[in-house]
């Protein structure tokens, strides 16, 4: 796969997954042949998917055993319903028993699936608890965010619970979508059709600059693969320690400092001006150049 220019953003969940893991190493749990579709979508005469919009299974990555879930943004915006959520939760429960080197969540989701909103909301809180439990047992979970639906709603929270968040510049990570904010608060609060603004508020470069994402990579499947391999190597050397009072107090101080430093900020430009020498050029910087300049600030 290496060397092929395959856009992560444009690929389907199954293309991303097969391009990420070692060739022919993937084996799927609860595959489409079992036809575990959503009865709730069926009752509303909405389209169904035999995998309910998420692929889960085991594979190897550079020879290491991993568990992996990939959400399909093209099906209902990757939204989480009862079956979809239960597959991810089951994968995390299984990880607790089989202790893979890592669990990879290829997040591409608007959050809760409204057609089964209550089931989706509960499922996401079950996934949150399961991620916390798996990581407390020393198994790191990595979120990969670079799909067309980004990581929003409850999946935005799940993403930030993960030990690592790998993003591309095209990836978006937030809680409420810009459309929701515009609908409720008005276009002057958030103009959802201003694409450059949306990216400056939710996009990969902004999230990396704030430390919400831990790595920024190119929009290529091999780039996400290489980053995941590096991260597995890192956790092999320095195993994940469960969050402690000390680490959470440190995180608390970091988040407090951010909210004080940017107490009135409403645009990523204000973050660039505080972080980069030449703020105006940030949107056009290559990923390598962006990472280099960011590294110089730390």
């Amino acid at each position, binding site marked *: 796969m290496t060397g092929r220019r395959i856009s992560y953003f444009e690929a389907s969940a199954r293309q991303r997954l097969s391009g990420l893991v070692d060739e022919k190493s993937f084996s799927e*749990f*609860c595959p489409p042949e079992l036809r575990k579709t959503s*009865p*709730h979508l069926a*009752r*509303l005469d909405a389209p169904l998917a035999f995998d309910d919009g998420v692929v889960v*299974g085991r594979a190897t990555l550079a020879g290491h055993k991993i568990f992996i879930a990939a959400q399909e943004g093209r099906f209902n915006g990757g939204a989480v319903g*009862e*079956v979809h*959520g*239960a*597959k991810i*939760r*089951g*994968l995390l429960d*299984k990880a607790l*028993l089989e202790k893979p080197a890592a669990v990879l969540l290829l997040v591409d989701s608007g959050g*809760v699936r*409204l*057609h089964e*909103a*209550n*089931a*989706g*909301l*509960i499922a996401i*809180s*079950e996934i949150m*608890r399961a991620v*916390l439990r798996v990581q407390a047992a020393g198994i790191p979970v990595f979120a990969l965010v670079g799909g067309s639906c980004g990581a929003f*709603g*409850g999946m935005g*929270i799940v*993403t*930030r619970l993960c030990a690592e968040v790998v993003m591309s510049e095209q990836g978006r*990570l937030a*809680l*409420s979508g*810009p459309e929701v*904010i515009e609908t409720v*608060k008005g276009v002057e609060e*958030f103009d959802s059709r201003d694409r450059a603004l949306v990216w400056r*508020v*939710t996009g990969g470069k*902004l*999230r990396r600059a*704030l430390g919400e994402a831990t790595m920024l990579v190119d929009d290529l499947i091999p780039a996400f693969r290489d980053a995941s391999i590096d991260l597995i190597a890192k956790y092999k050397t320095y195993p994940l320690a469960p*969050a402690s*009072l000390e680490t*959470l107090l440190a*995180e*608390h101080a970091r*988040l*407090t400092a951010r*909210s004080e430093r*940017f107490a*009135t*900020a*409403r*645009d990523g430009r204000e973050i660039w001006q505080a972080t980069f020498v030449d703020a105006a050029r940030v949107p056009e910087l290559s990923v390598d150049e962006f990472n280099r300049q960011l590294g110089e600030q730390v």
Partner: protein
Amino acid sequence: MSEQLLFDRLFGADGHKISSEGLFLHGLAEVDGQTISVIGTRDHAAIDVTLALRIADAILHTVRADASTSPRPILFIADTQGQALSRHDELLGLNGYFAHVARCVDLARRQGHKLVTLIHGEAVSGGFLAYGMLADRICALPDAQVRVMDLRAMSRVTKINLERLEELAAVSPVFAPGAENYWKMGGIHEIWTARDHWGERLAAAFGSIADSDSRATIGNERGGRQLAASIAQLVADA
């Protein structure tokens, strides 16, 4: 019902010392002769970055205070209309601040603090996810409202007409607002009635904390969520 009346009814007039600062509640109370920590939001709070930090700070404070003694139970009072809707909060990464709250709740659990949520007023979407839903046991007062979105907005977004949604809401707990629906699906463990002795129910809730997250199993037993437990098991057994 005001918070003071609620606390009088839960703990007796002399059994609590809980203060409010804006939309945030914090203090101590007595349950069954034992001191508990009370942390919450009030007046249908929209949870923003500042309020999320206040909640997280109170949890960390409790964990630190009890580091070398027996961990106090914690009662979360949830009254939230959901996450704050603002460009500023999204820019800072409100989802990251909510994840921080969730990590603090999880730390408290791992340190041995028993965690109960009481929904007073309303519990909506992201605000509920941020902390109330991660407790060991979730209780709702009789008038509590619980939802992701009201049916009108849901109809607009899903483009399914309102009459159809209303018709289905009458027979399925899966998408329509209501504490009763969440109870059927296992997302709420118990709904209290107006005639209950709330202090006794709270003591009983703290006494029946499960070790693991059994909401999917409960949802199946109550008939409201029949696939979550079996699908998760199917994957775990693969």
